[in-house]
């Protein structure tokens, strides 16, 4: 394979503190060098003039639905949506049917990802068999076969003693525990944030404490066990406080936030449109601002999409029966760029860090998340001035339950490069 020369772009690499117009050369699947006016010398060339050249985006949290719900997404369609969104690495959750809870499942995910040949798809295995919250999985075997973390995402671990065991055992196996923190009894039958809007609409509410009491519990258990805890889709101020305190004590605790918890708020539910039904629910605008502050502060180290595709007809289910989740991986960068960077609320470097080095750090992926020489040749090229309308011309995903549909956004992914090979655009 010929080398790839990405010419004349604004190279931003948060890890190296770099933001400069330069050329970037990839070869043998890795970053070779960067500098001014590098000679092409037989390399394929991408003209990146006017574009941002960043490390490939890493998504810690997506649902590609395969095996079991191929009508909603497959690993191939999910990967196609991911590279369209500039992602070069995606971690997929284990809430498939069957759940990914043994080495065969992990191998299956990797095999389907290889066959798709687009981005790197890293399996997150279940923490308990069948995500049933009873018997822990064989985490050493899972890791050996390619799992990068364990999580029962979607199903909170109710039992504190079991969570202690999971954190302790996963630490031995060298795997982080990705935590869907929710007290199911406190959440009850709620489907939106409990507050002013739920009071007015009568839509059953979930108090923010249904999340934060579990984050408090699990942070304490991370302290007890020395385990590696990562809080998924964090969505409340009290949860952020708990993570900050745990980190202050030197405990191994990190957190991610979704684009929708940064960009949308609970007032969307006034429409009763199930496209806004998500767990954890959209919060008040004030909480949204607080989550952004926590991201800037570093208490939250990654933005993860929680891309959750659902069949179109599910939009016509009533609000109680409609499933939770939003499909957003192909527009995540653009909506974040438009809603946060263009609005002056977040620096481009901060946004890129939350999409690259931040998530790489959460999983300890040392080979990516930066453009330093020798790192994987995973690169995303973005035209920051380009605009497009979300959903216009269809989705690469098999599903279209996207809350940003119809929005005109800024920031077009011009090329996605995985291991030195252009897998999208160019």
């Amino acid at each position, binding site marked *: 394979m010929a080398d790839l020369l990405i010419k004349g772009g604004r190279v931003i690499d948060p890890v190296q503190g770099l933001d400069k117009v330069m050329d970037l050369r990839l070869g043998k699947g890795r970053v070779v060098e960067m500098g001014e006016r590098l000679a092409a010398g037989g390399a394929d060339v991408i003209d990146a003039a006017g574009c941002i050249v960043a490390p490939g985006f890493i998504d810690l949290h997506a649902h590609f639905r395969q095996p079991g719900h191929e009508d909603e997404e497959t690993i191939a369609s999910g990967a196609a949506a991911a590279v369209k969104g500039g992602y070069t690495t995606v971690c997929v959750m284990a809430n498939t049917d069957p759940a990914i809870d043994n080495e065969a499942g992990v191998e299956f995910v990797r095999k389907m990802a290889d066959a798709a040949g687009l981005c790197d798809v890293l399996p997150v295995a279940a923490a308990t068999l069948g995500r049933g919250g009873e018997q822990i999985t064989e985490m050493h075997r899972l890791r050996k076969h390619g799992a990068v973390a364990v999580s029962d995402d979607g199903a909170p671990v109710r039992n504190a003693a079991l969570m202690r065991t999971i954190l302790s055992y996963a630490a031995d196996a060298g795997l982080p525990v990705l935590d869907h923190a929710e007290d199911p009894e406190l959440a009850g039958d709620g489907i939106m944030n409990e*507050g002013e809007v739920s009071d007015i*609409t*009568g*839509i059953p509410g979930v108090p923010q404490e249904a999340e934060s009491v579990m984050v408090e519990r699990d942070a304490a258990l991370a302290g007890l066990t020395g385990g590696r805890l990562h809080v998924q889709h964090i969505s409340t101020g009290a949860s952020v406080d708990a993570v900050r305190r745990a980190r202050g004590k030197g405990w191994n605790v990190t957190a991610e936030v979704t684009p929708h918890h940064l960009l949308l708020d609970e007032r969307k539910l006034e429409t009763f449109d199930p496209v806004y039904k998500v767990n954890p629910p959209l919060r008040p605008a004030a909480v949204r601002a607080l989550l952004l502050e926590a991201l800037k502060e570093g208490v939250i180290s990654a933005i993860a999409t929680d891309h959750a595709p659902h069949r179109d007809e599910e939009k016509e289910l009533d609000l109680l029966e409609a499933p939770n989740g939003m499909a957003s991986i192909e527009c995540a960068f653009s909506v974040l760029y438009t809603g946060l960077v263009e609005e002056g609320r977040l620096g481009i470097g901060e946004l890129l860090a939350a999409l690259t080095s931040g998530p790489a750090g959460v999983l300890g992926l040392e080979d990516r998340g930066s453009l330093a020489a020798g790192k994987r040749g995973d690169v995303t090229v973005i035209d920051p001035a380009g605009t497009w309308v979300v959903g216009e011309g269809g989705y690469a995903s098999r599903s279209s339950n996207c809350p940003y549909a119809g929005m005109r956004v800024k920031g077009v992914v011009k090329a996605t490069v995985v291991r030195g090979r252009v897998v999208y655009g160019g």
Partner: protein
Amino acid sequence: MGKWKKKHLIDVTDLSEDELSGVLDLAAEFKEKGFGREPLKGMTVANMFYEASTRTANSFAQAARNIGCATLNFSKGSSSVSKGETLGDTARVIEAMGVDGFVIRHSAPGAAKLISAIVEGAVANGGDGRHAHPTQCLLDLMTMRGNNGGFKGLKVAIIGDILHSRVARSLMAGLGKLGAEVAVAGPSTMMPGTLPDGVMRLGGIEEAMGWAKVLYFLRIQLERQGRPLIASLREYHETYGLTAERMGSLKREQLIMHPGPVNRGVELAARSADCGAARILEQVANGVYVRMAVLYLLLSAAKGREVSIG
């Protein structure tokens, strides 16, 4: 004088003050002058009741017949409605049978709105989850107006489970719109964190009885989704019910209302539902007139017929 243009009634919040009065006026006209002409002869109204309901379903059916409409009745138990078919699909299927209007009762908030976005015909919300119950609100307003004359300065206390009640939500909105003073009382486990602007929370039943002209009692359930919200019905009666003792201290002008069905001995002492202050049967009777007015206005608008209101 205005023209009625809406073909859906999802909540009273969608109605202007004039439209609210227009519905009440038409209902009162039906009540006083009768309705012999069967104005909508030949039309069909589908009653889609996904939640058990005797009085609302029958009240709508009676109202539809009174204005000349045939009715189709779908209830969750008797139809093939099941998981797999979406609410939208079911509405399309029923509409294809030649239906002009829909009344929907459903446990999901937003269900009537969802159907209104799909069908061509008129849609009346017969209660959607905890969200809204506009025709209940209208019949309550009609009853209050009939007994009080108007709403300015009228004090209404709603007592019971405000948090889980679509009746309370719609009534607070409707009364607020018409200028009445509204307050609520009930256990804290049954109170929303935020009340609509202008609605006060009273300390208890005694305060409500000292303050309000209309005492509106909500039906109580011991638990919701397996979560107990009160310790016992006995204790609820003692703390928030109209006990026999409290009945003795009712003032002459005070009214008792209840959306039904009454749990005798819980919200109201066994005999108080039948006392002179109670307007509960009047509410039921007005329910038919209000639903006639609503169906008449919505169906006329759906067919492009002009009706003057106000």
